[in-house]
């Protein structure tokens, strides 16, 4: 994933004044910045400042990033720096008595997991968009919380209940073969599977 050509292409397009590419970058990586801010337990106001500062630095670095493919790691580093800055400022505004407490340290391994999760999640969301409409509708119903029953799916999508299972299998197989998930690479998928250990 660290040499994901789609990230390199997005960065290059955004550096070349393509707002759509920039929007896709923010859509992809906002969850990573957000998750790191919540790891540092920032308040929403501080998260807003951190987000602005991180994006502003990225805007200014677009044409200069030495390794565009390493963007998620770069964003994570900048975000952590801005989080610590925000915490220091917030702490100062509070009672001086708390100033001696050490700033929270978020383990590098946790941040690394957040990066991997963000990359995997972004690839999965991109993979969904590659599917035909019927597959997207079916998976959306299966993924809704709580999941729709086969009876509801059958009524809404006008397909017999008996063919939902086979269609589900075909759609998921297409998803596995999507370019977004193929790029993600088998190695990345074996580590940190969701559903095993608790997330967040």
């Amino acid at each position, binding site marked *: 994933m660290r040499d994901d050509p789609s990230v390199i292409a997005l960065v290059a397009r955004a550096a070349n004044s393509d707002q759509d590419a920039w929007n896709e970058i923010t859509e992809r990586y906002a969850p990573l910045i957000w998750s790191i801010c919540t790891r540092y337990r920032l308040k929403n106001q501080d998260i*807003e400042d951190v987000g602005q500062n991180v994006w502003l630095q990225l805007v200014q670095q677009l044409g200069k990033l030495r390794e565009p493919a390493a963007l998620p790691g770069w964003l994570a580093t900048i975000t952590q720096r801005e989080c610590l800055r925000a915490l220091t400022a917030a702490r100062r505004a509070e009672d001086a008595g708390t100033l001696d407490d050490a700033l929270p340290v978020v383990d590098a391994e946790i941040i690394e997991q957040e990066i991997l999760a963000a990359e995997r999640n972004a690839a*999965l969301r991109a993979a969904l968009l590659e599917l035909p409409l019927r597959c997207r509708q079916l998976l959306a119903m299966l993924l809704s919380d709580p999941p729709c029953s086969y009876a509801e799916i059958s009524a809404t999508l006008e397909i017999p209940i008996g063919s939902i299972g086979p269609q589900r299998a075909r759609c998921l197989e297409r998803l*596995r073969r999507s370019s977004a998930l193929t790029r993600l690479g088998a190695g990345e998928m074996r580590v940190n599977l969701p559903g095993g250990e608790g997330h967040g």
Partner: protein
Amino acid sequence: MGDDWDDERLLSALREAQRARQLVPQWFIEGGQSAYAWHNIDAQLAQLTYDSSHDQDLESIMRSARTRSEPASIRALTFTSARLSIELEVTADSLIGQIVPPRHGTLEQESGDGEIATVSIDEIGCFCIQPVPDGSFRLRCRSEDGIDVVTNWFTL
């Protein structure tokens, strides 16, 4: 990928991907998108390089040196970019600043809700913002000779 992922695992991974995205409020995404307005703008980013509040010893000295007759300087900050720095002092009722090296220009104070207040920077590079900004804001300094610098967002 994922030939080793059965359907249930793949579905649970998709659910997790959606959940992670849904946790992020729309305003946060939109804030990221709007940052692109700064693309190709020549304003340089000035980073916070000094904050007296990070220097507790210095601050306690300043506190103890405070007298009733003169307004105490309660906090000092410096933002630095390649071409100039912005030095700030926070007093009880104002934010006093100086551009180094000194030059004439205008200073915009942008608050979190998008409001922009402009003050002038005099010939020795000094400006004064009253009252002290409440909440997060950033400063953009444009000198008459064309230097354009914007600070990070910060809160005093």
